[in-house]
């Protein structure tokens, strides 16, 4: 293996990792808004919640496409195994995203908002849940023969993947509450502050459950975390997680606006890093590594050149748009 064949897949794995992380953070809080919809009865308040994310959601969701397409670009053989293996949760996620996506526009032009509010809530929750199931299904392993998916059609449907699904719903709801507290005023902000604490507790419970379950169920993950000398390097991950959770709680109590949101993002990232540590270098655990499924060097280089040039631009104008819509939502701001 030449050094290019060695490092290119690593660079690409890192880039896709960044895209997925961006997605989890950005679409996370706006999916979370949908999860929180049932906890208010007032359509006016729902309007306010929706306005905090309306200018951004479309761009946020694009990171999901980048993650999927990035996998297709850099690791086509992994993409071709993962998608059929997780066929049903992927399709459920897509259909949920369809309803949720059109709800943004339809809700504003419809005479009665209730129906599309329901579609938005259900679509967001189901999309979040499916994403958790997809993640869980991947972590617990995919059966591969001759570089093709060879497992049963419902292999993904296990208690563990459903646990991951619920965990992600709770996680997105936490991001949603802290985002709302930051971007709104009055009733909505006050409720978000109250709810944030409950969601934080739920997230910690689920994180603990997943962290305990994976090493018990998967010996390779136990070996990764608890063997020496790995343990010396890895113990800070759970420790920092505990500290961040404590700080998040504290800031919510104090009514701080930005820090709880940043802390929930940090919690997400720590969980994500934990999963990466558990599964590296597998892209399709437990058999295919990032090198096994990598696209040819020519494809990876061609795309890398464009990415190094375009990705900073994308991040630049995304920041610009967030800056334009900075601050609390203004009353009645819409194009309708």
């Amino acid at each position, binding site marked *: 293996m030449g050094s290019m064949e060695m490092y290119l897949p690593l660079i690409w794995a890192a880039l896709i990792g960044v895209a997925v992380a961006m997605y989890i953070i950005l679409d996370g809080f706006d999916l979370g808004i949908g999860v929180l919809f049932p906890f208010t009865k007032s359509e006016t308040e729902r309007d306010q919640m929706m306005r905090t994310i*309306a*200018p951004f959601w*479309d*761009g946020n*969701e*694009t990171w*999901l*496409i*980048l993650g*999927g*397409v*990035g996998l*297709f*670009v850099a690791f*086509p053989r992994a*993409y*071709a195994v993962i*998608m*059929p293996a997780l*066929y*049903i949760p*992927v*399709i459920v996620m*897509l*259909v949920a*995203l*369809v*309803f949720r*996506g*059109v709800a943004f*526009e*339809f809700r504003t*032009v*419809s005479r009665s908002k209730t129906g599309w509010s329901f579609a938005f809530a259900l679509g967001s929750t189901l999309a979040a849940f499916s994403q958790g199931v997809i993640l869980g299904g991947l972590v617990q392993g995919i059966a591969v023969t001759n*570089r*093709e*998916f060879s497992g049963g*059609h419902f292999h993904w449907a296990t208690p563990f993947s459903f646990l991951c699904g619920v965990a992600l719903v709770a996680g997105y709801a936490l991001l949603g509450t802290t985002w709302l507290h930051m971007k709104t005023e009055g009733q909505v902000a006050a409720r978000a502050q109250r709810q944030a604490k409950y969601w934080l507790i739920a997230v910690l419970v689920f994180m603990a459950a997943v962290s305990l379950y994976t090493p018990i169920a998967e010996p390779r993950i136990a070996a990764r975390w608890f063997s020496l000398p790995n343990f010396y390097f890895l113990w800070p991950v759970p420790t920092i997680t505990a500290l961040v959770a404590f700080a998040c709680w504290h800031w919510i109590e104090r009514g701080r606006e930005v820090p709880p949101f940043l802390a929930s993002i940090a919690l997400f990232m720590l969980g994500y890093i934990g999963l990466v540590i558990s599964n590296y270098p597998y892209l399709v655990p437990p058999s295919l590594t990032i090198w096994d499924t990598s*696209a*040819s060097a*020519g*494809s990876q280089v*061609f*795309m890398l050149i*464009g*990415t190094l040039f*375009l*990705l900073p631009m994308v991040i630049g*104008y*995304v920041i610009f*748009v967030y800056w*334009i*819509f900075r601050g609390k939502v*203004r*009353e*009645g*701001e*819409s*194009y*309708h």
Partner: protein
Amino acid sequence: MDADPVLLARLQFAFTVVFHIIFPSFTIGLSAWLATLGGLWVYTGEERYQLLMRFWVKIFAVSFAMGVVSGIVLSYQFGTNWSRFSAFTGDVIGPLLGYEVLAAFFLEATFLGILLFGFSRVPPWLYTLSAAVVAFGTMSSAFWILAANSWMQTPAGHAIENGIAVPVDWLQIIFNPSFPYRFAHMLNAAYLTTAFVVLGVGARFLLEGRHLSEGRTMLRMGIGLAVILAPLQLFIGDQHGLNTLKHQPIKVAAMEGHWDGSKPADFYIFAWPDEKAEKNRFEISIPHGSSLILTHSWDGLIPGLSSVPPDQRPPVTVVFFAFRIMLALGFFMIAAALYGAFLWWRGTLFQTRWFLRIVANAWWTGFVAVIAGWVVTESGRQPWLVYNLMRTADGISPVPGATVLGTLALFIVAYGIVFSFGIYYMNRLIKQGPDAGGHGGHEPGFLSGNPVAAAQSPGRET
């Protein structure tokens, strides 16, 4: 259950892609139209341009949302239903889709936020610039998608190593032999489709006797565009046809319903291709028509369907009729555009009610022509998924047919609901017209105050 997974995967892709293509064909053109209106507004300072822009932004928002969600479905379907195709071609067309996301999709999706919600937050020039950026984004999106699709039609610049296609020359891959024609044909189709929608809405307003000033502007701008684009489309389509004859002759034979390659080809205005008997029934033809069009000679020979075995022919009936639908609508659009221009020149465009009635009811022509055109090119490629490289049947995922059938049903129900509501809402927005919300007259300082608040009054929903 022994449902045929190949057929079902194809049906599912056909259904989702036909649903999707409706929206890009509209939003590519509409975003350019919005940018044009914005430019005119900033340049002339005239109220009607701003009113029109704000009116069309609402319709744009609804159709863009449907385009986005159906596009996400497609981007994942390569993996769910066509995993062997993905494994085989990922190295070549993966990066093309990657560039689409990075260079085009992010641009559209991000600046859309400003276009929809930034009216009171940014100065007019930046607002207009955002519309232009969205327009540029949708166009670049089409560029990369068409590059990927064209490579599947006329693959070039690749080599086959260890059973997968690997890139050799990226310029040849992107600018493969059929790409320029396909890209020009699709882009022009999108602008023409939008021109006819704008035209239709303008005519509707004039017939109903309301929003007269905006209606006239739309009618003039729509006719102005269509009179250039519709004939141009005939020329591009003709060039595309010649290119297809060179690279995919059997597709052309199917479009023409031409079986016997040993004699000059007639052009069949109508016929019923009989694939078993290998001939047409009920022919109404222009003798030597196809020979003249395709070879520019009276006795020119073009390959016939019988020159290849049946398992290498596309579904002739589908391709044949879809091609005729596209042609008929194309000629209708040319006629309508030319006659409209004639009326404009005579000064009676706004009074000729029968003509207004026709264009008001013809807003859909571009959409159907686009769908028919895609059916021609995609069905015409069969039985190949990647022309001469991979058969469609070899590209599918190892997923049971019953699952594909189930999810197909799910998509049909979901899209049925979404589409019905989308059409209903768009129609209502058009009914409300450009000054819905009643903030007529002058808008004082879009930077101070909040001009949109008026549009939020409770009366809006009634």
